[in-house]
C-alpha cells in the first residue's frame, strides 16, 4: 500500500532529515515508527501525504508514484489518507463536532452520517460531553483525541498518526489503541509515529526505527532498563 524506495529528504540549507529510507507497508498492516526526537518521523509522514516533496527517491501509494500527481488532483491522494498531526491543526473557534465533521463534509457526506459518526467517535474516545465545546477550550489531551477522531472519521484507507498519545494518560491511550485496532480490522493501513515504547512493546506489529534520519536495522536496544520486557519487532 505504502512503498518508500531510497527516499532522502534534505531541508534547506543543510538539515538531512531522512536519508535512503526504504520500506513498504501492506494493506491492513499496522506499523510503528520510532526514533529519538528529531529522528525524522514527522518528516517521513509528511512525505507520504505529500505535504513535503522528497529530495530524492520514490514514494508510492497503492502503486502510484505520488510525485506524479498534479497539484489540482492532490485531493484524491489526501482523501485516501487520514493524518493526525503532531500539532493537531484544529480550528480553535469551531466546536469539537465541527472539527471532526470537516473531513466528512468535504466529500459531501450526509448530515445524518456525519452526526452519527461524530458521536460514535467521541464516545469511543471519552469526549461525549465536549461535543459542542470550542476546540480552544479543551485540554491538550482532549484536543489530541479530537485530532485523531478527525483523521479516522471518514474511514480513510491509510491512517498516519503522529505521536497520537503524547498528551494522553495510560488509560486513554488504551482507548485510542482500541480504536486503531478496530480500524485495522476494516483493512485500514496504519502508520503510527511514537516514542512511547509501552504502546508497541506489547503488540506483535512491525517497528521501524529511525536514527538521525537513517534506518536503524540493528536489533533494538532497550531505552531504559525497566522497559526491556517484550519487544517483538521485526525490523525490515
Amino acid at each position, binding site marked *: 500500500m505504502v512503498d518508500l524506495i531510497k527516499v532522502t529528504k534534505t531541508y534547506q540549507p543543510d538539515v538531512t532529515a531522512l536519508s535512503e529510507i526504504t520500506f513498504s507497508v501492506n494493506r491492513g498492516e499496522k506499523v510503528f515508527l520510532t526514533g529519538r526526537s528529531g529522528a525524522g518521523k514527522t518528516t517521513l509522514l509528511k512525505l507520504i*501525504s505529500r*505535504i513535503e516533496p522528497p529530495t530524492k527517491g520514490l514514494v508510492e501509494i497503492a502503486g502510484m508514484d505520488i510525485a506524479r500527481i498534479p497539484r*489540482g488532483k*492532490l*485531493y*484524491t*491522494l*489526501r*482523501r*485516501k*489518507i487520514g*493524518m493526525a498531526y503532531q500539532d493537531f*491543526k484544529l*480550528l480553535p*473557534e469551531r466546536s469539537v463536532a465541527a472539527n471532526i465533521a*470537516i*473531513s466528512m*463534509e*468535504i*466529500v*459531501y457526506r450526509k448530515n445524518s452520517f456525519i452526526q452519527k459518526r461524530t458521536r460514535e467517535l467521541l464516545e469511543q474516545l471519552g469526549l461525549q460531553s465536549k461535543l459542542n465545546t470550542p476546540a480552544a477550550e479543551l485540554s491538550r489531551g482532549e484536543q489530541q483525541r479530537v485530532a485523531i477522531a*478527525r483523521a479516522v472519521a471518514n474511514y480513510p484507507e491509510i491512517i498516519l498518526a503522529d505521536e497520537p498519545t503524547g498528551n494522553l494518560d495510560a488509560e486513554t491511550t488504551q482507548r485510542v489503541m482500541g480504536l486503531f485496532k478496530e480500524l485495522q480490522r476494516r483493512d485500514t493501513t496504519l502508520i503510527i509515529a511514537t516514542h512511547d515504547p509501552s504502546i508497541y512493546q506489547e503488540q506483535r506489529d512491525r517497528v521501524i526505527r529511525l536514527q538521525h534520519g537513517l534506518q536503524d536495522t540493528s536489533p533494538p536496544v532497550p531505552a531504559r532498563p525497566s522497559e526491556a520486557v517484550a519487544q517483538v519487532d521485526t525490523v525490515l
Partner: protein
Amino acid sequence: MSLLSAALRHTGRNMANTWKSQLTTLFTVSLSILIFSFFYLAYFNGLLIGQELGDDLRLIVYLDEDPSPPLEEEYRRKIEKFDQVESITFVSRQQAFASFSRQLGDDRDILLDLPPDFLPPSIQVSPIKSLDSLSRIKRFSDYLQTLPGVLRVQYGKEWIERFYSVIQLIKIVVILSGCLLIMTTTFMVAHTIRLTLLSRQKELELLRLVGATNNYIRMPFLLEGGFQGLLGSGLGMGALYLLYRWLLLRFSGSTLFELFPCSFLPPATIALLMMVATLLCALGSFSSTRKTLRF
C-alpha cells in the same frame, strides 16, 4: 450541486462566525463606493453646470456696413465652415440702437440727439459649448477678424478666461482625487482581504490537507466577496443618494441650485458601478486564495 450547497452553507457559517470583520469589510466597500461615486457625481454635475454657465458665451463681430442678404449668407457660410456654432444672429444698426436704448433704461433720453445709426451693425456668434473651448474661442475670434468688412471682434474675454480657469481647476481636483481614491480603494480592499485571509489561513490549509478540492475551498470566498460587493455598493449608493437629497434640501434656498440644474446619476450608471464593484470584490476575494493553496 452539492458543491454549491456546501459552499453556500460555508459562506453562511463563515459570515455568521466572523460578522465583526464582515461588517468592517462591508463598511470599507460602502465607503469606497460612496467616495468614488461622490466624486463622479460632482464631476458629472460640474459638466452640467459648465454647459449651463457657458450659455451666454458669444462672440460679437462688429461690421462696417449692414450686410446685404447675399453677404449675410456668405458670412454664415464662412463662419460655419470654420467651426461648429450653435447660432448666428445678425444685428443691424437699428436693432443695435434699440437694444442700447433698452439697456440704458431711464437714461435713454441721452440718446435723443443721436442719429439712430451711430452704433455699428454686428453678428452675434454662439459657438458650440465644450469645457475646453477657451482656446477654440480665441482661434475663432482671430479667424473672424480676418473676414472682409469686420471692424472688431469682441467677446467676454476676461469672464470666459476666469470661468474656464475655475472649471479647469475643478477638473484637476476631481481627476487627481479620483486617482488617489482609486488607489486608496484598491489598497483598502486588498488590505481587508488580507486580514480575512490571515484569520482563515489555518482553515484553508487544513481544508487542503484533508483533501478538499480547490473549488470547494474557494467557492465560499467567491460568494462572500460577491455578496459583500453587492451589499456594500448598494449601501454606498444609498448613502450617496441620501447625501445628495440632503445637499439639495440644505441648499435649496441658495442661488446655487436655482441657477444650475442638479441631477443624480442615471440608473444605468448606478447599475454599472454596482456590477463592477460586485465583480471586483468577488474576483479579488477569489483570487486572493491562490497564494494559500500552494501545497
